[in-house]
Structure formats: structure tokens, C-alpha cells
């Protein structure tokens, strides 16, 4: 190499060096201080958002406490929105979000704490919008901004509240089906199940669908009058039972890190405990003689594992999970015409309370050993959902009434 070329190389290098050193100078930065509850088998999804998703990363929950520095670089924005969601399987266990301001010529801080029982303030009752004719409601953060969007089932097409309609008519479930840290919404159209907003087609159509952690990946359970089916998201669906299914839910009922399934129909309640080869029927796990149309899995007694609520024509019955996926009958409420059962921590005691959507929707506060200790009435509703609509990390109860009005609830 000639000295001329060597000098030219050195000149280019000098330029690069100057750029590098200058780039290390005054930096507008936002330092995130993140504290995460170390929940076994859970992962933490961290996203940064400013009109579009700018960053997403997944950490094991046990390793997700520390700091991360966001450099504004050449962006002129003054703020950045950061959201953290603690997930296990397809579901969100806890969440926190906040907006940080870049330092004017240095660093500023944003602190987020992600824990299943974090103290936050409740949002006062707020109207969110109207969708006349809507038949169901689900919450999902599909863009990673830390605020849940409200998805509405509607005969003229599924839509986000305030958005346009799609060709699907029913919203079935929520979960991160493609492992990108963003919620996907399972919807059904005439041809099958889709994951929105990507539009990935998952399987043949069904009345019910839930995502579940299969240990080796994410699994999908679907149910309808033809029975209950199960398969890995990238695998083949197989039949678990031919008994007609009216409602379906998934949760880790025995603490082994793999989600289990509970299905209910007129024929009874079926529990399937997840294992290496997929869910296996646990005969006798549910109290004998129970049947119904609606179910919910929720931690009524605060012992860390979900308990069971089943609604039939005339009542709602509750059973306590012993911790190994076997349920003991505990209590029942006389309520007719139940349309849905939902879990929501209404009183901030870190235990789920049971929301019974019926002709007169009621919240039942769980107490020790899942005994009902109080109730409050919300009037006639079509559906309710727990959603963090303001991105403060606390979920509000969002109500959909018969006029299509959607609003948050406040005691």
C-alpha cells in the first residue's frame, strides 16, 4: 500500500474518530430504572413508543431489574413512553408504564415497578366512546404504548373502539401469539381464526379460543359444539374431548409452569392438566355434578393459584384450587341469566374479585377461602373487561352497556 493511500486511510479514520468522539459527548438521554417482581416462568416485555414502536425486548422476569438508557440521538422529541408487561403464557400478570422526558443536555430518569400488587390510583368514571350494537369487549395493547385498546365484537365487523371495522365478527381472546412482546387479538371470521393486527391465520373457525403456555411454546385451545381441540401454534390440532364446550379458560392450576385447561358445557366441567405431551384429562378434578355455560379462573383467596367459578342457569358456584389443580366446592350465588364471568381486583387487596355480568351485573368481593363477603351492583350490561386504558399500570373495569356506550367504572 502506498503512503498516499495510507494517508488517505488515516484521514478517513480521523473523520470517523471525530464523529465517534463527538457522538459520545452531550447526550440527551432517558435512564429507565426498572424493578420487576421475580415471578417463576414469567418474562418481562419492555417496549418504548413514540407514535410508533421504537424498541421491544423480552427478559426473564428474574433478570429484569436494572437500568436501561434510551438515547434521543437525532430525534427532536422531548418525551418517550415506556411500557413493561410481566407475561406468563399468553397472559399479562402485571404491567407498568410511564412517560419520561429526555434530559435537556444530559440524563433524566423514569422509574417503573412491575409487580402483581402495585399501588396505583383508580381512574374516575370516564366515558370512552360508543359502538351501537357491540356484543362483546376485550382489552389488548397491540401497539406497545402501555395503554390497552378496547376491541369490540360487532355483527358488522370487529373494531377497536373509535376505529374502523374488520371482516371478522367476534373477538375471542388475547395473547402474544408471535412472541413479539405485543398483544395479538384472536378473532373469528367465516373462514377461521385470525390473529390481529397481523392477520395471521391460525386454524379453522371455532366459537371459543384461548392461548396457553404449553411449556415448549405457545399452544391454542379451541372449543365449540363439536368439542375441545388443542395444538401448538405451529403444530397440528387434536381433539381432547367431543363433549360440547360452552366456555373455556387456561391458567397454570398446579404451579408446574405449564398452563392447564378448563372447559365447561352442559355435560360437565372438564379439567386438563398440561404436561410434556400436552393437556391430559384430570378425571375428578372438578366437583362432581357441576355443569354450566360460563366459567372464570381467578385467584379468589390470594394463594397464588387460580380458583374456579362456574355459572349455570340459576347460580354461580365457586371452588377453591387446592394448589394441584383439584377443586373443592366452596360457595354459590343465586343469579340467573349469567352472560359472562370476569376477574377484576375491585378493592385493591391483590385478590381477584368476581364480576358477574347478568341482567343486573354485580361485583362479588372474594375473601378468605373464596367465600363471598360483599357485592355491588352495576346495572344491566352487555359485557365488562379489566383494562388499563390510561397506561398507569392499574386496570380499570370497563363497561359496555346495551346502548353501546363504553365507560370506566368507579365505586
Amino acid at each position, binding site marked *: 500500500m502506498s503512503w498516499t493511500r495510507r494517508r488517505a486511510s488515516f484521514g478517513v479514520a480521523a473523520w470517523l*474518530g471525530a464523529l465517534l*468522539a463527538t457522538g459520545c459527548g452531550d447526550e440527551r438521554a432517558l435512564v429507565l430504572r426498572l424493578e420487576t417482581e421475580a415471578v417463576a416462568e414469567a418474562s418481562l416485555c419492555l417496549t418504548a413508543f413514540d407514535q410508533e414502536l421504537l424498541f421491544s425486548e423480552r427478559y426473564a422476569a428474574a433478570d429484569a431489574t436494572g437500568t436501561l438508557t434510551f438515547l434521543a440521538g437525532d*430525534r427532536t422529541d422531548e418525551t418517550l413512553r415506556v411500557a413493561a408487561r410481566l407475561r406468563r403464557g399468553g397472559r399479562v400478570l402485571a404491567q407498568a408504564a410511564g412517560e419520561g422526558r429526555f434530559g435537556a443536555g444530559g440524563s433524566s430518569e423514569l422509574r417503573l415497578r412491575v409487580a402483581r400488587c402495585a399501588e396505583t390510583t383508580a381512574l374516575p368514571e370516564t366515558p370512552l366512546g360508543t359502538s351501537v350494537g357491540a356484543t362483546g369487549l376485550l382489552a389488548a395493547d397491540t401497539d406497545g404504548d402501555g395503554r390497552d385498546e378496547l376491541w369490540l365484537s360487532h355483527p358488522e365487523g370487529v373494531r377497536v373502539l373509535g376505529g374502523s371495522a374488520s371482516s371478522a365478527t367476534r373477538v375471542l381472546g388475547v395473547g402474544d401469539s408471535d412472541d413479539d412482546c405485543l398483544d395479538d387479538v384472536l378473532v373469528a371470521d367465516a373462514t377461521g381464526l385470525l390473529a390481529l393486527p397481523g392477520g395471521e391465520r391460525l386454524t379453522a373457525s371455532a366459537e371459543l379460543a384461548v392461548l396457553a403456555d404449553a411449556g415448549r411454546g405457545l399452544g391454542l385451545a379451541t372449543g365449540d359444539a363439536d368439542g375441545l381441540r388443542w395444538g401448538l401454534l405451529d403444530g397440528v390440532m387434536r381433539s381432547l374431548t367431543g363433549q360440547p364446550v360452552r366456555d373455556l379458560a387456561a391458567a397454570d392450576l398446579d404451579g408446574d409452569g405449564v398452563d392447564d385447561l378448563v372447559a365447561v358445557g352442559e355435560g360437565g366441567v372438564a379439567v386438563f392438566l398440561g404436561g410434556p405431551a400436552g393437556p391430559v384429562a384430570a378425571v375428578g378434578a372438578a366437583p362432581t355434578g357441576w355443569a354450566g355455560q360460563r366459567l372464570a379462573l381467578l385467584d379468589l383467596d390470594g394463594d397464588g393459584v387460580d380458583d374456579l367459578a362456574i355459572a349455570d342457569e340459576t347460580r354461580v358456584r365457586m371452588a377453591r384450587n387446592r394448589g394441584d389443580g383439584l377443586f373443592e366446592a366452596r360457595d354459590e350465588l343465586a343469579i340467573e341469566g349469567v352472560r359472562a364471568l370476569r376477574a377484576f381486583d375491585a378493592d385493591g387487596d391483590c385478590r381477584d374479585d368476581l364480576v358477574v355480568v347478568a341482567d343486573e351485573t354485580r361485583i362479588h368481593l372474594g375473601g378468605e377461602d373464596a367465600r363471598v363477603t360483599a357485592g355491588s351492583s352495576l346495572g344491566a350490561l352487555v359485557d365488562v373487561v379489566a383494562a388499563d386504558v390510561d397506561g398507569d399500570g392499574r386496570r380499570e373495569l370497563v363497561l359496555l352497556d346495551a346502548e353501546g356506550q363504553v365507560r370506566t367504572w368507579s365505586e
Partner: protein
Amino acid sequence: MPVPVPVPVPVHGAVPVPVPVHGAVPTPAAPVPARTLARRLGAYLTFAAALFASTLTFAQEPAAEGPADAPVSASREVERHLEDGRRLYRELDFPGSVDAMRRALNVPGVSAAQRLEAWEYLGAAYVVLDREAEAEAAFREVFALDPYHRVREPSGSPKIERFVEALRRQVVSDAALDPEVELRALLPAAARVDRPVPLRVEVEGPPSVASVEARVRPDDEREWRSVPLERVEEGAFEGELPAPANRGNLEVYAEARDARGRVVSRAGEPLVPLVLPVRERDDVPLRRRPWVWVAVGVVVVAATVGIAVAAAGRETAPNGTLPPGQVTLPLR
């Protein structure tokens, strides 16, 4: 003709471990912030020295692979179960070997090469235990992963070999594996960037081989590229693999077919290939390489300007403790 040297022997389970890629926006490493002028000066000089030292290291050896915590730990767990399974099989504890191999298969993230070995041991153990239906299912899994995989049961049991080949005849139409035909691939000790790689394949055994084809790919790509080899003498085929464009590793295997196009024997396999390191061209002295001077320039000027910046009292953002430490947000 290349000089015959030993090539790396394919070892079950010794597969390249993928390095995890963070979903973050790529960011440059940043120096640790300093509170005082002296500490800033020290930090910049240390950074400069480290960068210079790294350039010298890069000039001699390929970069070592970075940390790969999650996949590495999964791979280690699988390897532990596989080792248990192999040991128990050697000790004739076939039910124990079956359990160990099943545990290996149940580890999330188990690689295809590891699955191949686990299914192979499972199939062999089931044949010994006279559980033929399960043995058939296991070997069908083997053939699904690699239809021409030659089963290497440690004891060389003819019963197992008969079972495997009878099943293979049912499910793989173009396989005619002949245990008496051995292929020996002769490769140089290392490939060089921008230079074709000579390959010689010697065939030992009955003269049933009509053609030999090599398959090659860089270890960071999925697609294999086929290279037909020419017969240069009785029992020997030669050819040149395409010149690698970058440093890293080349994965190679050779496949011999008979006159009816059926696979007779192989050297290496797609899931357990021969691995050839790719190094920089060695005919350019270090001082004549432009990037060396560029690196030296970057170090010198970065150190100088850095000292100046530090002396002017400028602040730098701290590096975070969560990967990737710092995230430079993209321009909208």
C-alpha cells in the same frame, strides 16, 4: 490437489449454538461516565487502548462467539441428558437410557442434531427391549429429520441395523446405504476468504458409486449449495467449493450416489456437517491492510477528541445494566 489433513470429526451434539439477537435498535458501546476530569481521561485512554488491542487480536484470530446465555444453557441441559442416555445405554440400562433421551427431547429449544441423536438412541433401545412399534416410531422421527442418516449404534448390533434398513426401505425410496462403502473427505485445514476451497473425496469399498456431490454453506445461512465433483481416478472425486466471502465457518458434507441416483454413502451429514474454519487471506501483511490504519486512526483521534471533550466538561449518558445497555432511538 489439496494436502490430505484430518478434518474435524462430526460429533453428535457439537452443533453451533445460535447467538441470541436482542430485538433492540443497534447501538454503539458507550464509555462509562466519569465525574471528574481525571476519571474521564482514564476512561478514554482505557477505551482507546482496548480498541487498539482488539484490532491486533482481530488481525490474528477470528472473533470469539459472544455470550449466548439462554440457548447455551438449553443446549447444556440437553447435552447433559444425552450424555446420561449414552452412558446408560453403554451400561445396558436401556429403560434408563430411554428416560434420559425423552428428557432431552422435552427441553425447549433442543436442536435438530440433538433430536436426531435422541431419537436414534431411543429407537435402538426400543429394538433391544423388543418394543418394535415404539422403535419404528422413533426411527421414523430419525428419517423425518434426515432420511439418509446412518445409524451408529455403539455396539454395532446387526439386529438394530437390519431393523433400521428394513424400515428405511419402506419409507425412503431413494436410499441404498451400503455399510461397506466409506467416503473420506479431504479438506484443507482452513479456508481463506475469497479463495475457492479444494475438496477431494475418496471412496473405499465396492465400486457402486457413480457420482459424488458436495453440499456447502456458511454456518450462518440455511441454504445448502450443491457442487458436483469430478471423478479424477478410480475411487477419487475432486472439485472446488465456492470461495467464502467472509470469515467464520463453512459447513460441508459429501453424498455418493449409485447409477440409479440412490444415496449410497456420505461423509458428514446436513445436521452433523464437517466444519471448516474460514480465515482472512494470509498473503497481505498486517501493516499493508487498510483497515489496520483506519483502526489506528480511529483510536488515536477518538482518544484525542475524547480527551478534549472530557476536558471541556461534557457529560455522557450512563450505560444501563439491562441488555443492550443503551438504545439509540432511530430518527423518525
